[in-house]
């Protein structure tokens, strides 16, 4: 299973799931409101140095999130 965290900068993928065990309800709602839905295409725009955040694009929304959150998003390339 690939995670958003594993993707290289510039890569495209499709969201296949969100780790329901490690994502609590408030975080799940925030993710959904920002467009993290199964079947959506996601692109990694860039990654910050020193294990900093990822900059991703879903549809017309640009989002930054930490690696710890990117490990919760499952993707297929």
């Amino acid at each position, binding site marked *: 299973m690939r995670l958003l965290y594993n993707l290289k900068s510039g890569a495209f993928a499709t969201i296949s799931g969100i780790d329901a065990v490690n994502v609590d309800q408030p975080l799940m709602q925030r993710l959904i409101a920002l*467009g993290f*839905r199964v079947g959506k295409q996601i692109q990694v725009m860039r990654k910050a*140095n020193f294990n900093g955040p990822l900059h991703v694009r879903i*549809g017309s929304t*640009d989002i*930054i999130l930490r690696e710890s959150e990117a490990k919760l998003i499952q993707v297929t390339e």
Partner: protein
Amino acid sequence: MKRIALLGMPNTGKSTLFNRLSGASARVGNWPGITVDLMCAKILTGSHIAELIDLPGLYDLHGFSDDEQVVRHFLSNNEVDLVCIVLNSTQIDRQLSLALQIRNLGIPAILLLNMQDEAKRAGITIDAAAMAAQINMSTLQLSGKYGDGCPALLQKMAEVINHDAPKIKADEVAKRLEADSQIELEMQSIVNSTVQIPTTLNNKTTDNIDKILLHPWFGLPIFIVSIFLLFQFIFTVGAPLQDVMAWLFDQTRTVILDPLLSTAPTWLNGLLLDGIYNGVSTVAAFVPIIILFFLVMSMVEDSGYLSRAAFLMDAFMAKLGLDGRGFVMVLMGFGCNVPALMGTRVMRSRGMRLLTMLTIPLSLCSARLQIFIFMIAVLFKPSQAAWVMFSLYMMSLFTIFITALIFKGRFVSNEPFILELPPYRFPTAHQIWARGWQEVKHFLIRASKFIIFGVVMVWLLTNFPSNVPSASVDTYAGQIGALFAPILDPIGIDTHLAIALIFGFVAKEIVVGSLAVIYGLQGDALISQMAQNLDWVQGMSFMLFSLIYTPCLSTIATLKTESKSSAFMWLSIVWSLGLAWVVSLIFYQGARALGF
């Protein structure tokens, strides 16, 4: 009166639309969750006056952030005649869910597809009529930024609120807030049939700018250099304006006020001219530079660069127990600490919120900026000014980082960090002007509240008892100064400066004003007199102390209400006073030991 609420996700231009409709000026920021106080305004819809309320931005009616709770509480406790749901047209594919949630509550609502201009540029077309039919809600396309579609909106508002539909009770809304499902599927189907989004949606300009400004190695240096250049610009343009103001105030006194009050009793003449006039005019001379500062700040905030700063700084902030948003709050604090403290409401974890709130009062706000501009003019050559100022900003950041490092063990959190990155935007002249005018008003309110009180108090303390020379050691001010001497002597702060510092506790604007009162001088005369009395080591120690100790009573009050804890408020006060003293002591004794 009919009540209309504006509601929408962060970054939908809701506040801009509010300003456009109300003609007033709510603060706008290109930063999620910036609208923290509920702004209200009276607006004319059709032939009736209605009350317009700007609710905080929210992602989800069921969300868990403080802002989302505010909206829920508002809707469960207040009956509204109309909710205007503001959506960003370019992000309609995910934002429509909010409209469906509101519709399910049964409150009369209009759907506003905002940022029509950006959607058009991105090639997104929305069939508003078909959408209106499908969600069973009036739907308008508009641009709050440029005002397109606003007259039609006012007309629509009038139609809806004057239509005597049975109003839904607030407690009924509270019940319905508890459950809704199926929204995901419905949203998908509506979007598919009414919205056309190009398959490759690229904002070329934003992407190209991001390639430079978010560059893995150069991004951060570019950010620091840009901020430095912006400040440099403010001082280069602002300093001559300030000189003109000071000269005008000086002339007004010699040409008009002195002759006018020459026959008044000595004490009245002294109170009005040496007290209130000198004090207030010395502070008022800074108004142009402060306006300029806020104009530049508002452009930076609205541009979207601050969210990028959060991206660039997050890895570093994580090591301090904070996140990228904390860094943005600190930058906001450069303007005024109070809204920055309120901005921490977007954080869910209490530990992170408190840790961020502990650092914000150390951020060099515009009121402290006045002290430094003034003291730098007293102590340093114009060629050195920019570097001294830059070092004070660096010192401000340094104390923030130290504070976070020391306290991160006490305020632990595992807050997820997810943040929307808005496209780069340039504010319109209207937005910039509205913001500048708001700051002038803000200054005048503070002036009438604190500065006059402060300078009158300082004048009384430095002129009584009346049988001793004014500002001498025998006045009340001198006695108070002597009381604090054991603490303040080791950091090089004399009696005059001590009085200014004590009143600076109320508000930092008072500091410069009270120096004018203490010395009984204004303008160039004040600066040259102070230059003779102080050396740069003392002055620098005074600036460091002013930078670090508690900014003002408003900040303290905000700390208490936002943290809901007196203990936390006292921690902040004691910590900042202690840190201020220690830093000044190390600097002053160190510099003296090195022979300066």
